């Protein structure tokens, strides 16, 4: 790799600086230039340390990681650091918290930031970059080189604020999926729809032929209630209006309540607000607002509903005895677009943002962008995790849904768009947008009304 040589020199340089300026941090690189070929041979494990030589000897150093990912998803993350820790000697301290978003801002403001934070919203990266320009660190040279090499350039854009590159992609998830029971479909003789019209026809067919309702949905998520409904709207925006309008809407180049958005929301409403279509096994239309999104798919297992739209990560929500496979208990199909040739895909994901320029932190951030890490993480995670890293080995993805997501990420025809609510300013994307969608369902407010409510809350700047 051409990037390796430069980065080695860069590391050595910063390491030298670290001993002078950051001596107070407890441990720093001892100045080793990182070229020690024998470094990996000493490690008595089956980890191949060859790929880690570029990071140098980081013995005695530590990196703190702060995330919103908590039990049980935290353990695979912690386990995925082991090769890095064993080969470089650095220690990685993981801390996950439910209060991540709030606590991160508290810590930043108090001057106590973590070394690395996993941020799931590009909008928050922008807020932090604007609010704490002296604290946030640009992505290190080597990590940036990795991103250029292994990721679609779109993923780099999400982490870029006004030309500076701050957020390196970590995990990713495909959101445009509809969960269903293959056996129920087979028994009833239903085909997987390939266009939006077919999907609506199927919905109508189920509603008229079956005793149970075609769809179930749930948007309750504690203080984040409403977000699953924003995904519905975003998916429909991509399908009804196309990616260009979607981008204009995301960037507030067209008003939030533009007629095209109203049209998309009405399209979502044809399913979500039709009492003949929802909410199988969970109640009436309004029960969507109080059903936990994690529980929303469970009626499929009892045959009380047929379909539930939710991201690839939902496979972790099925009870343990449920098989997720094309011939298993449940599986997911791609939420089709207006034509079978169009393939817009709504995605989400986390980004690593660094608040320290210590060499071990840069090395660690670089490790997280490498295919090696994605492979290890895929192994430690099991089903429900995938990365947009093109050069990871898909053989490590054991679940067919993850493989499908990976293929969609890598497919040239796929038009990727990041979750709009995560790109918008927090008071909209994590505030009024959520509550507007909740009111849209819970209080049966009209599409126009809720959207114009969000528009008026858009920060004036």
């Amino acid at each position, binding site marked *: 790799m051409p990037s390796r040589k430069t980065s080695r020199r860069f590391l050595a340089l910063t390491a030298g600086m670290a001993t002078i300026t950051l001596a107070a941090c407890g441990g720093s690189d001892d100045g080793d230039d990182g070229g020690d070929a024998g470094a990996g041979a000493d490690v008595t494990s089956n980890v191949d340390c060859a790929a880690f030589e570029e990071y140098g000897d980081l013995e005695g150093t530590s990196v703190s990681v702060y995330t919103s990912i908590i039990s049980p998803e935290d353990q695979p993350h912690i386990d995925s650091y082991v090769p890095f820790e064993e080969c470089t000697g650095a220690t990685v301290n993981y801390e996950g918290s439910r209060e991540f*978003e*709030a*606590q991160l*801002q*508290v810590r930043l403001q108090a001057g106590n930031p973590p070394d690395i934070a996993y941020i799931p919203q590009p909008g928050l990266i922008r*807020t932090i970059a604007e*609010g704490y320009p002296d604290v946030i660190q640009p992505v290190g040279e080597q990590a940036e080189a990795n991103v250029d090499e292994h990721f679609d350039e779109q993923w780099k854009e999400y982490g870029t604020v006004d030309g500076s590159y701050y957020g390196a992609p970590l995990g990713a998830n495909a959101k445009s999926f509809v969960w269903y029971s293959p056996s129920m479909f087979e028994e009833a003789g239903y085909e997987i729809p390939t266009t939006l019209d077919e999907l609506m026809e199927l919905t109508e067919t189920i509603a008229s032929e079956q005793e149970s309702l075609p769809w179930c949905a749930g948007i*309750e*998520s*504690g*203080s*984040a*209630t*409403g977000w699953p409904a924003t995904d519905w709207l975003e998916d429909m925006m991509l399908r009804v209006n196309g990616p260009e309008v979607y981008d204009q809407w995301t960037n507030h180049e067209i008003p939030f309540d533009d007629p095209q958005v109203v049209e998309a929301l009405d399209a979502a409403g044809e399913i979500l607000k039709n009492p003949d279509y929802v*909410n199988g*096994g*969970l*109640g*009436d239309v*309004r*029960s969507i*607002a*109080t059903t936990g999104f994690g529980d929303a798919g469970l009626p499929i297992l*009892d045959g*009380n509903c047929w379909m539930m739209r939710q991201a690839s990560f939902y496979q972790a929500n099925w009870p343990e005895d449920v098989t997720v496979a094309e011939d298993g208990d449940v599986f997911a199909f791609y939420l089709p677009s207006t034509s079978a040739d169009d393939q817009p895909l709504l995605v989400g994901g986390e980004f690593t943002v660094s608040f320290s320029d210590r060499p071990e932190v840069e090395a660690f951030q670089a490790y997280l962008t490498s295919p090696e890490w994605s492979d290890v993480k895929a192994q430690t995670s099991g089903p429900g995790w995938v990365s947009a890293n093109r050069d990871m080995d898909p053989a490590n993805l054991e679940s067919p849904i993850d493989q499908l997501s990976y293929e969609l990420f890598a497919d040239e025809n796929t038009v990727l768009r990041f979750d709009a609510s995560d790109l918008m*300013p*927090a*008071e909209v994307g*994590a*505030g009024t947008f959520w*509550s507007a969608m*909740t*009111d849209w369902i*819970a*209080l049966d407010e009209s599409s126009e009304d809720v959207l114009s409510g969000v528009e008026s809350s858009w920060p004036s700047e």
Partner: protein
Amino acid sequence: MDFLLTATTPGQKFLVMFIAILLFVAVMGIVLWISDRPRIPSWVTVLGFLAPAALLLLFGLIYPAFLTIRDSFRDRSRSDFIGFDNYATIFSDAGFRTVLVNTALWVVLVPLLSAGFGLMYAVLVDRAFGEKFAKTLIFLPMAISMVGASIIWKFVYEFRPNQAGIEQIGLLNQILVWIGLEPQQFLLNPPTNNFFLIAVMVWIQSGFAMTVLSAAIKSIPDDIIEAAKMDGVSGFRMFRYVTLPSVRPAVVVVITTIAMATLKVFDIVRTMTGGQFSTSIVANEFYDQSFVFGQPGIGAALAVLLFVLVIPIILYNIRQMKLSEEQR
């Protein structure tokens, strides 16, 4: 001596704890020893008693409160003065009127209901058989953390449709189904959903009220009761004319304390509805604006609003204090 800051083993941690306590005792000992020297000016004594607490309060509450008041007049970057814009934003927001009404509901209902239930229960189980056990039952909710409380009430309010093959998992709806009614979405329909959230807080705070008031009841001198009895007073009249007047000051303290706590509480709303369905209260809005939406200015203005809301309670208590001062 690294372990003083980074204790890792249980032994080290307990050692640090004992060192801290000893240190604290030593410092306080010196302070008091100085303030008790003979012929020392009296202001030194006052200082000795008050200064430690006053310093901590200055540092930990007054200074932050001052910063908050200042920030409430500044923009989101906390650097530019913008006058009353944040306050204007709050009050021009359509949804905010609901928030204020909800907060008023909370701050009136929670203290009154908690104190009411707590007092009645304390009177009824007083000196009854199994009193300790009976009181523990009401106290239990206080011992449960907020996360625990939210899950407990999920098993009460949770809604499932009334159809074949589906069972209720919320007790309240199960009861409705048993008596032949349709299950309800308790947390979904404003304004009644507010009452169901308030019930949770009352459930928690009644234990506090009951404990304090029960003790106050027990401290009513027996001779007062005996004398009243000789006059033929009993039952409800005993409660009305003897018990209630005697514990009235304690009731005021309980109501005040719970009202203050209610103004600040946000966990219940946050975990149970996320402030949706018109159930938000000022403390919840404050948390969102300050820590989620990156709007410290508006958050600060909301905190200042909390100070303002509490003024009536303070005034009432000042009056009470004056009264009891005169009685001394």
